[in-house]
């Protein structure tokens, strides 16, 4: 074995330089190596404005993969992650995904792209039949629309419609209690901002029909200055404001609205506020902003979740993001499914994954489930609370009720013609 392999490697490296001819020699050696390790391909965004989220996805995946490898690997095979930058461009994400399977020999795929890229990678998964878990795209139709459905693709990200149902009912309860009838919205002007705002107001009005939207603002994505938006909202004098601005846009907006004392004049509902990326950056975080949970180590309030958040912080010296838990969950589910199937084969993992419930630090009741009929994650911790300027930032999160979510989600699917 050793005698035949040693010259094999040196010949291979020599021939590799000479070009395509080397491939035929190298191939059997690669195939032998695969018997031990299993390569998982992962396109994600590692450069540009959203790089922080992509990096946090990679960090979370590596944290979990290390644990699995230490425990013996995926059905006995050590995992080797092959992680590539898509620069946040859908066409690049698709190209990278294809290359990971065809050239790098990845047998499984974690698609850690934002929505635009996820739909592109989904088509690659459809074409190549490779097992794929979408970890970051929250766009509901990715799994809700039966036209998108393929047996080999799953999603471990939260889903837009779940968030809207929980957010809408939470906001409506406060609207009723405090008599907030006049609402304004301010969200980034692209698909995510438009869709999320529409879904939120749909459910807000459903639970609190007396609510009226009196002003809408649609700043550009990555707009540096929001002064005219802030003053426009002040003119409209709403009692409450909804926003799905996120990241640096949200922190800019808060700083600029702060000096107009906006937060004293209305209740603010910012779904993306309670994420460490924003919470730790804003210097003068106003008290009492309502936000959905993204990732916060105090919700669910379990030792498992707190320990996971602390372990991540200890390793990477920053807190995890929303994308972190979604990616960690993907690896956890994949490992359990492989154990159940006793195989690292994509088809068998996919079969075992359908309807699989696992123990998970991010579960509302300590478990999460990969729903069998539409291949999307359910049962994850979802809720809303209000901010305070220092840790734990959102001291109390009111958990959403999954029974209500399921009922309204089914209704929503019907209204969209998905079922």
């Amino acid at each position: 074995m050793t005698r035949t392999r040693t010259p094999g490697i040196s010949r291979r490296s020599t021939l590799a330089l000479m070009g395509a001819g080397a491939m035929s020699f190298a191939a059997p050696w690669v195939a032998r190596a695969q018997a031990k390790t299993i390569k998982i391909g992962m396109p994600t965004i590692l450069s540009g404005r959203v790089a922080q989220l992509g990096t946090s996805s990679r960090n979370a995946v590596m944290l979990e993969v290390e644990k699995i490898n230490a425990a013996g690997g995926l059905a006995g095979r050590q995992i080797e992650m092959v992680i590539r930058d898509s620069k946040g461009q859908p066409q690049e994400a698709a190209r990278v995904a294809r290359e990971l399977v065809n050239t790098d020999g990845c047998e499984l795929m974690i698609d850690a792209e934002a929505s635009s890229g996820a739909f592109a990678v989904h088509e690659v998964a459809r074409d190549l039949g490779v097992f794929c878990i979408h970890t970051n795209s929250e766009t509901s139709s990715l799994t809700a629309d039966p036209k998108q459905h393929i047996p080999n693709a799953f999603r471990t990200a939260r889903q837009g419609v779940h968030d809207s149902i929980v957010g809408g009912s939470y906001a409506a309860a406060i609207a009723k209690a405090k008599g907030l009838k006049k609402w304004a919205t301010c969200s980034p002007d692209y698909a995510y901002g438009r869709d999320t705002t529409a879904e939120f107001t749909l459910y807000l009005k459903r639970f609190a029909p007396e609510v009226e939207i009196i002003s809408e603002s649609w700043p550009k994505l990555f707009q540096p200055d929001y002064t005219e938006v802030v003053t426009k909202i002040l003119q409209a004098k709403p009692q409450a404001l909804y926003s799905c601005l996120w990241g640096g846009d949200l922190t800019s907006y808060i700083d600029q609205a702060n000096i107009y004392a906006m937060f004293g004049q209305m209740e603010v509902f910012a779904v993306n506020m309670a994420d460490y990326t924003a919470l730790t950056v804003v210097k003068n975080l106003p008290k009492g902003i309502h936000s959905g949970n993204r990732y916060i180590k105090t919700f669910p309030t379990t030792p498992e979740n707190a320990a996971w958040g602390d372990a991540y912080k200890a390793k990477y010296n920053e807190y995890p993001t929303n994308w972190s838990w979604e990616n960690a969950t993907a690896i956890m589910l994949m490992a359990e499914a492989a154990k159940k199937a006793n195989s690292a084969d994509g088809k068998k993992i996919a079969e075992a994954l359908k309807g699989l419930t696992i123990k998970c630090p991010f579960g509302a009741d300590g478990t999460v489930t990969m729903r069998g009929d539409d291949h999307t994650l359910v049962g994850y911790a979802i809720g809303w609370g209000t901010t305070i300027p220092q840790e734990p930032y959102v001291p109390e999160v009111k958990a959403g009720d999954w029974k209500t979510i399921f009922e309204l989600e089914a209704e929503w699917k019907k209204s969209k013609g998905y079922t």
Partner: protein
Amino acid sequence: MDLDALAGCLSSSACLVTQTTSGLIIGMLLFLVAVGLTLIFGVLKVVNFSHGAFYMFGAYFAMTAYQLTGSFALAMLAGAAGTAILGLIFERVFMSRVYGADVLMQLLVCYAFVLIFDDVVRIIWGPEFKAMGMPAAFQVMPLFIAGGVVPPYYLLLIGVALVAAIVLGIGLSRSRIGKVIRAAAHNPGMVSALGINTGLIYGGVFALGGMLAGLAGALAAPVRSLTPGMGFSVLIESFIVTVIGGMGSILGALIGALLLGLIRSFGSLGFPLFTEGLMYLFMVIVLVSKPTGLFGKEAA
């Protein structure tokens, strides 16, 4: 379109005050960036596409100085002085080599530095966005003037920009250095023949332009998030300002920036879905009716 909202605002003093000051704030910050651009073009005859980077560096320098010293004044100083030095080095080492070259060459050098500067920021400060935070002195309730809301920090911001505009205007037209700069813009060969070091003037003008953009970045840092690449968004609007006002004209940059600010603040009420478009439409109208811009001189 929501013309009722616009009309309603124009007839209410509270709204008029709030929206006008909001327009002035947007305009004045834009002016500081645009005036550097127009100054550099006026004297050096290069279009500095990397100008946004100075705005970015100004903001980062100010944030770092603020974190180290806790002094807002020092933060502003660091933003302005740091970018001035950076501008001088950039001009002497790189830009001065492409003065005679064609526009494409200059464009390429500038564009290369847009990417390089962004990566430098990424390496030094990290890729994630940052916030400087509002100094405690300005964390106060906004003023209410005739019912309109005006934050004190923005009054300071408008004041600083206005002082910069006046000093620049008077300095260029009255002082000896100003006269030399204008002479160098007009006929560098003659100025050089009179024994004046034109290289020094060019470097100085570039440093001044960079400093003004850096000051804008420093002033914006407490209210805008800092990211690599943040200069690009202000660059495009600065170009619109200089095109409207006339390339090379300081008064034009001031008027152009204020007009753009007011278009944004009132446009967002009357034409919420077309505020951006309104800016470009205005630029087109100016270009069609006066191709050199409002205060631009006919090409010599």
